[in-house]
C-alpha cells in the first residue's frame, strides 16, 4: 500500500506497450505516450522513483491481481466486470471506440455489420460491445492492436472496431483508400487500476487525478498525444 511504496521509494506501474498514442516505443527506443507520461507525472508527484512494468494487453488485470505492479495505467476501461477483480480510480482519460471502414462500405450502426467481416483486438471493450450487439458478423479477434492494424493495412479485412487513435496510423500506410469513422460505439472512461484492499493508495490516486485534471496538466498530456480534448466532467463521471 501507500506507506510501503513510500518506504520503498519506488512505484511499480504496469503499462502494456503497443497501444497507439497511449503507450509505445518512440524513435529513441524510449517508452512514450499519454499513459506513460501520466505514470511519470504520478510517480514524480508521489516523490518516488518510477519502475515501468512492461506487460502485454491480456496481462493487465492479472499483473495487478498477483502484485506484480502497484498500479496499472494502460488504457484500461472501467467496467463492472473488471471492478469485481480490481479497484479503479476516478476516470483520468477516455478511449473513443469506433467502427471504421473505407468510404465505399455503407455502415451506420451495429445492425449493418450482419454478414460482414470485422476485425478487433481481443479482450478489449470493443470486443465485448461488438460481440454483444451484433448477430451474424464474422469477428476476427487479433491479439494486439499492432496485429489488428497490420490486418487492415495488408487488406485482410476492411472493417475494424478499435479506438479512434489508431485510425490515423492506419491511413498513413493503407493502400486501398483511407478508413473513415462510421459510428462511435462509446467513449469509455479509463481508470488507474490497483489491487483491492488498498484504501489509502486509492484515496491518494483519486485525489491526484482530480487535482491534476482540474489544474489542466492531465488534459494537456492527453491532448499532446491524442489530438483531442477530454470532456470537462470526466472526473465526476
Amino acid at each position, binding site marked *: 500500500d501507500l506507506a510501503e511504496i513510500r518506504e520503498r521509494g519506488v512505484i511499480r506501474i504496469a503499462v502494456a*506497450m503497443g497501444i*497507439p498514442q497511449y503507450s509505445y*516505443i518512440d*524513435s*529513441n527506443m524510449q517508452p512514450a505516450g499519454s499513459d506513460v507520461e501520466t505514470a511519470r507525472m504520478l510517480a514524480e508527484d508521489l516523490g518516488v522513483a518510477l519502475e515501468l512494468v512492461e506487460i502485454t494487453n491480456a496481462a493487465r488485470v492479472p499483473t495487478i491481481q498477483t502484485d506484480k505492479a502497484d498500479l496499472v495505467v494502460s488504457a484500461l476501461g472501467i467496467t463492472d466486470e473488471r471492478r469485481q477483480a480490481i479497484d479503479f480510480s476516478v476516470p483520468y482519460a477516455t478511449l473513443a471506440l469506433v467502427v471504421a471502414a473505407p468510404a465505399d462500405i455503407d455502415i451506420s450502426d451495429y445492425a449493418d455489420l450482419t454478414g460482414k467481416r470485422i476485425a478487433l483486438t481481443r479482450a478489449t471493450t470493443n470486443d465485448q460491445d461488438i460481440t454483444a450487439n451484433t448477430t451474424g458478423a464474422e469477428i476476427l479477434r487479433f491479439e494486439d492492436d*499492432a496485429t489488428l492494424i497490420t490486418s487492415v493495412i495488408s487488406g485482410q479485412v476492411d472493417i475494424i472496431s478499435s479506438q479512434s487513435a489508431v485510425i490515423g496510423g492506419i491511413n*498513413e*500506410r493503407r493502400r486501398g483508400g483511407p478508413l473513415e469513422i462510421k459510428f462511435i460505439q462509446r467513449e469509455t472512461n479509463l481508470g488507474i487500476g490497483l489491487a483491492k484492499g488498498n484504501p489509502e493508495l486509492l484515496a491518494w490516486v483519486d485525489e491526484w487525478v482530480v487535482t491534476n485534471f482540474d489544474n489542466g496538466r492531465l488534459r494537456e498530456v492527453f491532448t499532446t498525444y491524442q489530438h483531442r480534448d477530454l470532456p470537462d466532467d470526466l472526473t465526476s463521471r
Partner: protein
Amino acid sequence: MQTFGTGHFIYLLNGLWWTIILSALAMSLGSIAGFIVMLGRISRRKWLVRLSGTWVQIIQGTPLLIQMFIIYFGLGVVGISVPALAAAAIATMIYASAYLGEIWRGCVQSIAKTQFEAAESMGLTRWQALRDVILPQAMRIATPPTVGFTVQLIKNTSLASVVGFLELTRAAQVINNSLFEPFLVFGIAAALYFAVCYPLSLWSRNLERKLNVGRR
C-alpha cells in the same frame, strides 16, 4: 511517421541477447533436470518409471505458454514474487527437462541391450555400465536431436513475452506497434533467429553425417 533506424536495430539486438541468455539458462538447467528424468525413465524401479513418465506426459502435454503463465502468476498467487527472468527460466527448464529426458531415454535405449549385458557380465555395476559404456555411445546418437530441440527451444523462448520478458519476438512486436511495418520488422527478427539457429542446425547435420559414416 517513424522509420526503421539503428535505434530499432539495437533494440532488436538487445532482445536477441535476452533470447540467448534465456535459452542458455534453459538448456543448462534443463539438461540437468532432463538427465534426472532420463535416469527415472530407465530405472528398474517401477514407481520411478511411472513417476517420471507422468511428468513427461504432463509437461509435453501442455503449451509452454501456459506453463509460463502458471509459474509466473501462480507463484505470485501463493505470495512468492519471482522476477520475470527467473519465472521464464524455471518454466523453460521444466519444459526442457521433459523433452530432453525423453530424447535421451530413447538414445540410451537404442544402444543395444547386449552392451549392458556385456558390461554387467564383466561385473560392472549398473551405474558404471551406464557411465563408461552406455552414455559415451548414447551421447553420439543424442547430439543431433538435442541440437534440434535446442533450436526449437530458442524460438519457443519467444513465449516468455507473456510474463513481460522483452526477448527478440516481443522486441519486434513492440517496435512494430509503433512503426506498423510488420514485414520489415519481423523479417529482420526472423533473420536474427536464423543467424543463431542455422549454424546450430548445420553443425548437427554435419555431426549426424559423420556418425552415420562411422556406423556405415
